[in-house]
């Protein structure tokens, strides 16, 4: 059997997805046996021009991670879409925007100002902020254009499969690879490497009737390892997050943060999380309810940490 042509690219990413791929440990040898890696910036030295030279749909599978932040990301997204038979949005950033998506709460100007002018460790007396085109004696230097907003992959190109997670667990990565190699993939547009139910289905903590009388920060009180986080007053996005990660965060003693994205049928992970969790607040008095919800200092980032760009409203209105 001919080896599969496999590519992996990182757009606005942290590199964690690449590390996760390597975290399959010795199974990487099985992957190497089944596939030829034709493009993987972190690990190999192929250039963009190599990709441009490929015939269309030449690459069998591209694992695209990272969100679309600038014109370079977008260009590669479109390029790899053209050159790939199967384009997989790999990891939270490509799937739903991920942590870079939190930048959507600021304007482009605010971001550039903060990074290049305001941060304490920056020394920038000429107050230079990035410019796509800069004239220099030798000619003109261009750098990618910084977009107004972060977008997940599917708002730029058509995506075939989604592998959620920040990063996807090595076990699930191996499952996906096996599915690809054996040709056992579900219909296009599906989420793979994850459960169809939410985290609560896998979570081993004991669940009783939910009643929340107040919220606590995870750092302030020692949580009981056997009881549901929400019942103890700690935020946990588990109920509104797709399962499949073996509840690694819950087992480590913190509530789920939602990186696997919303379950099927939920349009807006943040809104649904809000609805579910506030519904069980134990109070009927408006003033008391207000006091309890005011215990959460940052609503949008707590309830929709990973999926803002993929939600109904993708960014803060400017």
């Amino acid at each position, binding site marked *: 059997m001919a080896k599969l042509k496999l590519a992996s690219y990182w757009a606005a990413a942290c590199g964690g997805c690449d590390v996760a791929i390597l975290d399959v440990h010795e199974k990487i040898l099985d992957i190497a046996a089944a596939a030829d890696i034709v493009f993987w910036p972190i690990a190999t030295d192929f250039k963009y021009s190599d990709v441009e030279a490929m015939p269309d749909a030449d690459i069998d599978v591209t694992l695209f991670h990272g969100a679309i932040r600038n014109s370079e990301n977008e260009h590669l997204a479109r390029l790899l879409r053209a050159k790939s038979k199967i384009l997989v949005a790999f990891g939270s950033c490509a799937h739903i925007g991920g942590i870079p998506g939190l930048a959507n709460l600021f304007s482009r100007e605010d971001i550039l100002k903060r990074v290049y002018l305001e941060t304490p460790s920056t020394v920038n007396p000429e107050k230079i902020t990035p410019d796509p085109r800069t004239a220099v004696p030798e000619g003109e230097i261009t750098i990618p254009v910084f977009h107004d907003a972060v977008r997940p992959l599917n708002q730029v190109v058509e995506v075939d499969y989604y592998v959620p997670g920040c990063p996807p667990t090595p076990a699930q990565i191996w499952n996906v690879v096996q599915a690809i190699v054996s040709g056992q993939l579900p219909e296009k547009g599906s989420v793979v490497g994850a459960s169809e139910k939410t985290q*609560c*289905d896998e979570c081993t903590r004991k669940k009783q009737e*939910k009643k929340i009388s107040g919220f606590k920060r995870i750092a302030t009180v020692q949580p009981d390892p056997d009881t549901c986080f929400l019942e103890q007053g700690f935020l946990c996005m588990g109920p*509104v997050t797709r399962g499949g990660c073996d509840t690694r965060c819950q087992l480590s003693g913190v509530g789920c943060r939602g990186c696997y994205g919303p379950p099927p049928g939920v349009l807006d992970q943040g809104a649904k999380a809000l609805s579910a969790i506030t519904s069980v607040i134990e109070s009927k008095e408006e003033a008391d309810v207000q006091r309890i919800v005011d215990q959460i200092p940052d609503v949008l980032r707590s309830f929709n940490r990973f999926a803002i760009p993929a939600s109904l409203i993708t960014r803060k209105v400017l």
Partner: protein
Amino acid sequence: MKTIRVKIDGIETEAEDRTPVLSIAQKLGIKIPTLCHHPLLEPYGVCRICTVEVRSGRRVRMVTACNYPATDGIDVLTNSPRVRRDRKLILEWIMARCGHVKVIEDLAAEYGITEPRFGRGDDDCILCGLCVRVCSDIVGANVLGFVDRGSKREVSTAYGETSEKCIACGACAYVCPTGAIQIENDAALVRQALPLGPFTPIHIPFMQAVPHQPVIDRESCIYFKTGGCKVCEKVCEVHAIDHSQQDTYEEVEVGAVVLSTGFRQFDAAKVPEYGYGVYSNVMTGLEFERMNSASGPTGGQIVTSEGITPKSVGIIHCVGSRDERNHKYCSRVCCMYALKFAHLIKEKTGADVYNFYIDMRCFGKGYEEFYHRLLEEEVRFIRGRAASVTDFPFNETEVGKLIVRVEDTLIGQVRRIPVDMVILANGLEPTEDARDIARTFNISCGDSFFTERHPKLAPVSTATDGIFIAGACQGPKDIPDTVAQAGAAASAVQSLVSRGEIEVESATSIVDAEKCAGCRICNTLCSLSAITFDEEQKISVINDVLCKGCGTCAAACPSAAIIARHFTDEQLFSEIEGVLYDVRA
């Protein structure tokens, strides 16, 4: 129980062996005088006035009828010359102790005593012992007893001191034949005057009570204080009295409820300018109604608080109703009852009657005609909302009167009308607990009367299936309308009950077991307790019959596993897109 034959005053009769002769005679209707006898107490035989002549064989004896046991074949004479002679002597002896007691003097006159031979004593107690016996045998308080002997013998409390055990039941005073015992008004022992007048512990609350049956007031009933008395139980021929009855709480499962919890009177004190509670001759409609009632405190006579018949009466309409400060609505019944009062007052007293009105609302059958009749009876109608009632006189004719100040809008003048009595036609408002009742039965009442399902088409139904409302609790109305609504509600219930099947809500919610992750967030959200958790399958389940389809659980479900039939997420998203059609174009 041996039956014997006796003859009394020539009449032959049968009786049970050893029955006291007095009882046999009383059954035959023969009168024998008594002083120390009471049907509920054991006979004492101490006053001797019931002496009769008994012949048995050849023996003749003079005995006291109250305790002489009849035997077979006796022949009793209750009014023979010898009996009369003996009774006369007995009375003279009694008068030697109690010479000025009326009941003794009346008896003495019957026996032809004009001047007792042994003089007239000044005592009033004939030592009959009724008070002692009633206090120990019936009441059970044991406060009174005989002390000392001979001529010094008297009835007294222990050591002659005020007894703490006396419960002031008044039984001793009640049975005393001479009036020697009086009840003193010790402030600590006087009961509060009750609104409907004094009554005995067992009483029918008032003439119009429904059911028209006696009730026992535990607070004052002697049995509950001492364990004694129970006289009422002894005299009740049908054995209907049971002192051991307790309040019971019963749970009844029903499929429909008709609420007819009525109304509350508007508190006329909330319109302070009319002087209710300040002037004793200003009263509410219901208070006047009570005074006018033949079974009321004045026997139906219309009198002021000073007890005199008024020469002029003012009736103020719309007290608390059609009022920005109190109730904006019209209470519907007051104009007609105010007119009724006007007619009654005219008829009973001939007084000048003034009705102060805004509009005359005579909407029913014969109502307008009744109003016209009053015009002919020369009731004065002044169109104007009365401004105030005062007792401050401007001149001599107003002294001692209540003056109603009003703008007479038909002649455009402010007037002062002096009257002896003012009746405030106060309106109707919801009962104090209307809101609690509404919450208990899950119906709405706003801040007013219970809300009907539809003001025209469904006046006795509510938004909640199976709960019906009738009468004043739905809104102010008079008796014909209340009766009509009551019939409507009853027939609505009948049609529910007789159908044999019930329509269940179709827009209920259901859990998709494939999607439910068992987070249990929905479990506490259902106010109808329709959601349970299946411990085996580790999913939540909705009871389709209990579910009424509010959709609260569906909105909360973080797995989008609950489908709110007919109001699904997809349907609502489509509606939202639909109403924004002109934006998305």
